[in-house]
């Protein structure tokens, strides 16, 4: 191994472990008298954490790659477990409104551990990567179900809102998927058209760029009138849940926001087939349709999928605004939490949105890898 390759391999380990060790000086947990007031920092096991990070660093710099990966995965799992364990001890004899919140120390360390794991598995086969992440997620979920984190404030929020949370999670996912499906169904043909008719296409992109700048709340307020009118005119639509509030205006707005990137990436994807290839195909006597399906789509698919990955992640994040128009979703916890001054409730909604977005990202990454290997 050359020097520069060695540095490239060990640099992330050194940097991230240094961050982890430094974070031992930040508050790992906060003990707050209730949901609203700020807490007092607590660092019950800084020394143990410093030792753990040193071990991870040593393992990371060793020749055994699997050992490094295993140690890092263990760190990703241990940190939340430790927070849960400490929270239970800190709550002993405390009043029922007391909340044990995870502090900057915890989050910095956990992020460092996650990034390190990401770095360790990089270069492995995609199936291995997915397997390792799924394994870590599985252990964490299992621990959660066994009650290991129950006394951490975010989990307290989850338990207080359990039914509503699972509903919201499902709604959020469904809203995002419907939005993606509609954005694709509309965006792909529009994109092909915009690519062919360059000038009109430019105008179309301009129009959707404009929609991108309209704030969602203003858009919702504008949509209530016409959508409610439509529902009154066609009761069949209304019986399907279509109306001025609820899923209809939410999906409409989200599709509007998603169309611009879908259009952009479709156009870029179609451009991915070099002019030579297109002309050669025409020379072979291919029709425009054949050119599109046999040359441009296969060549442009990786670009398009890379774009869709961004659209999917963006849509999952944006779908939080759906709760402003009564469509539900995880945004409910974000906005109610902000109103109540309950950071943990905001965190509950945000973490779930991040998890969904990451899952989406992983899915499209897989599809992307598949398309890449085919083409």
């Amino acid at each position, binding site marked *: 191994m050359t020097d520069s390759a060695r540095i490239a391999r060990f640099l992330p380990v050194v940097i991230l472990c240094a961050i982890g060790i430094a974070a031992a000086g930040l508050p790992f947990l906060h003990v707050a008298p209730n949901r609203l007031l700020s807490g007092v920092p607590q660092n019950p096991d800084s020394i143990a954490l410093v030792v753990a990070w040193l071990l991870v660093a040593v393992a990371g710099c060793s020749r055994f790659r699997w050992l490094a990966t295993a140690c890092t995965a263990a760190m990703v799992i241990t940190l939340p477990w430790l927070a849960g364990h400490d929270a239970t001890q800190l709550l002993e004899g405390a009043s029922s409104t007391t909340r044990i919140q995870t502090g900057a120390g915890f989050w910095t360390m956990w992020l460092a551990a996650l990034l390190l794991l990401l770095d360790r598995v990089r270069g492995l086969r995609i199936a291995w990567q997915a397997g390792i992440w799924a394994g870590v997620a599985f252990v964490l979920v299992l621990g959660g179900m066994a009650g290991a984190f129950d006394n951490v404030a975010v989990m307290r929020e989850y338990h*207080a809102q359990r039914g509503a949370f699972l509903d919201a999670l499902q709604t959020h996912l469904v809203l995002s998927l419907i939005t993606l499906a509609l954005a694709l169904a509309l965006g792909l043909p529009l994109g092909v058209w915009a690519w062919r008719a360059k000038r009109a296409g430019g105008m179309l992109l301009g129009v959707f760029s404009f929609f991108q700048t309209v704030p969602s709340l203003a858009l919702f307020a504008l949509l209530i009138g016409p959508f409610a009118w439509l529902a009154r005119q066609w009761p069949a639509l209304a019986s399907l849940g279509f109306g001025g509030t609820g899923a209809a205006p939410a999906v409409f707005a989200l599709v509007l926001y998603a169309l611009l990137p879908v259009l952009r990436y479709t156009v870029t994807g179609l451009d991915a087939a070099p002019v030579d290839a297109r002309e050669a195909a025409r020379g072979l006597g291919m029709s425009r349709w054949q050119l599109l399906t046999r040359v441009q789509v296969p060549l442009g698919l990786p670009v398009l999928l890379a774009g869709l990955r961004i659209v999917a992640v963006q849509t999952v994040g944006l779908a939080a605004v759906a709760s402003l128009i009564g469509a539900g979703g995880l945004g409910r916890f974000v906005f109610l939490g902000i109103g109540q001054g309950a950071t943990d409730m905001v965190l509950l909604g945000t973490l779930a949105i991040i998890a969904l977005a990451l899952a989406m990202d992983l899915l499209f990454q897989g599809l992307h890898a598949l398309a890449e290997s085919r083409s």
Partner: protein
Amino acid sequence: MRVGSKADNEGAVLGQIVLQVLRREGIPVTDRTQLGPTSIVRRALVNGDLDVYPEYTGNAGFFFHREADPAFRDAARAYALASSLDREANHLVWLHPAPADNHWAIGVRADVAMANRLRTLDDFARWVNGNGRVYLAGSAEFVESDAALPAFQAAYGFRLRGDQLLVLAGGDTSATIKAAAEGTSGVNASMVYSTDGALAMTGLVVLEDPRHVEMVYQPAPVVREQVLKRYPAMRDALEKAFRPLTVEVLQHLNARTQIDGEDASKVAADYLRGQGAGP
């Protein structure tokens, strides 16, 4: 029946009370509570996309651009005016409101109130004008809206300088009350809503408004006339459920959702059970 409510803390509780009362009356209901901010919920009701939601009487002053009307400073007249305006313009019926009046107010730390004998906004004006060391946290809306701080200043004859105000753009009372309770950057007073759940726990003293600068904001279920005709029994049931909602009761219910983090539906169910009206 589609039941809506505002998305804020109190809106969630009031919406659940309406929802559960109607459900108990055997009326088929769809849960649209915590629908969104006032502008969205109100539009949805006016457009027939909702059938009922709890609104504050004083807000009718804004809906009909009659903020200056003295009628909105008196509980009975505010209700009468709101209900007649809305029946005529939108075929909406305001049921009898709860006695609680949830208006904007100024809350000061208990130690400051005690030391300076502050009970009303008159006392506050005297204290500020006598070079009292006030540092008040409020949202941009509270500091600028003609319905809030500027109105208090004009009526009680005091003026807060820029360096006596901590403006949190888009801030909620939860954030400003927290700042005052913890004395963050020396804040010792905060904008509050009189039914805020955080008041009891933080020990802020809400200053009285003897000159009635604020409009009266009593929560009342607002129903579409058409729907009320179909289910006339809902009027009595809802009014009975709203009648015991005093400022203290609402503060207590709000505190359960905001401070203890309980779910609004559970808090509403407990409240209704306590009224002998539960399932």
